């Protein structure tokens, strides 16, 4: 008899699967649905020289501040209500990271190219801007009668992707609830391996939540590991479960000005352990009950 699938891992085991120099995709969007607990676990590790691909928020800011990022592939880095991500800005203004700056839609196009095993996908996006020249993006000519010149958006193949969802089971079936899952499924499909943190880990999704099967945004064949971490998106939001922690973001942003030194504040925003971190922000019950933002 074959062994039942069991992809459960601890956060440390997940980060143990990553290695220096990797290209790492991080799901979510700005201050929303970010796998922050896994990002914090990276921040507690010796991992370095990462190429990070993300619709960036504090995940990118923190990894930049901690010197984990060699290169960033991004279209924006923002905390939304705090438009300019202060730690990312510091890293950029210090010339500390290489970047490939892309349009939001181009970034997903690069993930899709990677997912389909293509070297590139053609697009008009980027023509007439500085993106192509700065990013070293080449053009291709349509082989058909139109002969249109298009940008060849290179595949953004990821060594690993991290996403945070509401539910998972031990075989890697996941459910991402909430109004928008952003591009999490494309991060998963673009990655050689995808690791998931979730608010609730169940034995079998078909027994626990069969009515929400539509929330299964990506097939379990793309999922290599799952870890249950309640409040794992904090301080970002995880609709419909909880909103972002603007007080925490504000403190994080203020710390970029004063004292302005990540090593002096990393304990507070990362902590020696996830339990210690969450306790510092009022405990699991508090962070998973934060109200959803109003738009």
């Amino acid at each position, binding site marked *: 008899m074959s062994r039942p699938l069991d992809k459960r891992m601890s956060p440390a085991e997940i980060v143990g699967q990553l290695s220096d120099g990797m290209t790492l995709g991080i799901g979510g969007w700005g201050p929303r649905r970010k796998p922050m607990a896994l990002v914090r676990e990276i921040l507690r590790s010796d991992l370095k020289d990462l190429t990070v691909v993300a619709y960036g928020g504090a995940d990118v800011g923190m990894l930049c501040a901690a010197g984990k990022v060699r290169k960033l592939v991004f279209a924006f880095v923002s905390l939304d209500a705090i438009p300019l991500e202060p730690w990312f800005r510091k890293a950029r203004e210090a010339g500390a990271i290489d970047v490939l700056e892309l349009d939001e839609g181009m970034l997903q196009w690069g993930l899709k190219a990677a997912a389909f095993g293509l070297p590139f996908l053609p697009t008009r996006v*980027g023509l*007439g*801007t500085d993106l192509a020249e700065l990013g070293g993006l080449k053009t291709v000519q349509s082989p058909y009668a139109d002969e249109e*010149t298009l940008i060849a958006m290179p595949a953004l193949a990821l060594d690993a992707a991290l996403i945070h969802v509401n539910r998972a089971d031990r075989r890697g079936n996941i459910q991402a609830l909430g*109004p*928008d*899952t952003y591009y999490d499924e494309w991060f998963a499909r673009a990655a050689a391996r995808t690791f998931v943190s979730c608010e609730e880990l169940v034995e079998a999704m078909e027994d626990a939540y069969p009515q929400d099967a539509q929330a299964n945004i990506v097939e379990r064949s793309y999922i290599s590991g799952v870890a249950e971490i309640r409040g794992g998106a904090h301080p970002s939001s995880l609709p419909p479960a909880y909103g972002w922690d603007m007080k925490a973001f504000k403190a994080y942003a203020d710390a970029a000005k004063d004292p302005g030194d990540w090593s002096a504040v990393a304990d507070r925003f990362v902590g020696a352990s996830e339990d210690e971190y969450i306790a510092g922000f009022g405990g699991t019950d508090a962070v998973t009950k934060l109200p959803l933002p109003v738009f």
Partner: protein
Amino acid sequence: MATLAELCIVACSEAFRGNGEVVATGVGPVPRLAAGLAKLTHTPELLMTDGEAYLVEQPVPLGPRGDYKPRFAGHLPFSRFFDAAVWTGRRHAMVTPTQIDRFGQINLSRLGGTHEQPKTQMLGVRGFPGNTIYHPNSFFFPAHSPRVFVPDEVDMVSGVGYNPARRVAGGNYSGVDLRLIVTNLCVMDFRGPGNAIRVISLHPGVTFADVTEATGFDLIDAVESVTPAPTDEQLAVIESLDPHGIRASVIKDNPPARKAA
């Protein structure tokens, strides 16, 4: 008396007039209220989101909503946004870049320095490259100055304009469609020779000289009128969409619609 912000909302709403069934996106309080005003008055066929992932037929008011609950008529999460609205051209966005130049090229990414080490890092290009090559765009600037309307090209070309020097041979730029620029001083369009920027109306009490002084490049004087003041009906709609008066914070000191002499 109406405020300058309210006058700008009405002027911005004209950008969406008769657009048809496209998604009207206004980023920031004035553009967002303008899109809502357009939908509730002259162009009801516009599509609009709740600012998140759902389509609504009744524009969602700004700020805390009390008992008001948006009613969702459709779904437009980010993935579908690119598939259905941006990359198909079925959208008109009104945004506020940090810089714009005489070609309509816009920048939201960085100021000064180099790409490797910017003097000031801002948001990043966001969706500007795709928006500007695929669907109509308009702009609102609350503080018209040469720092926004820059003398040369913008520091990083994040959105496509009409600069012939930036055209790649064989590229298809037929989707580039820059419509209206509304500022705290005037309304402009891109209908001069070679898509040059023209001033088409001045806000009450503003002169063409005021505008040129606040602009880093030459403008065409095509002024036909004074920008119309909001009607009572328009003001009532604006109030219903902005019950907390967030519009008062957009233009410095929330001046009245008519500039003091």
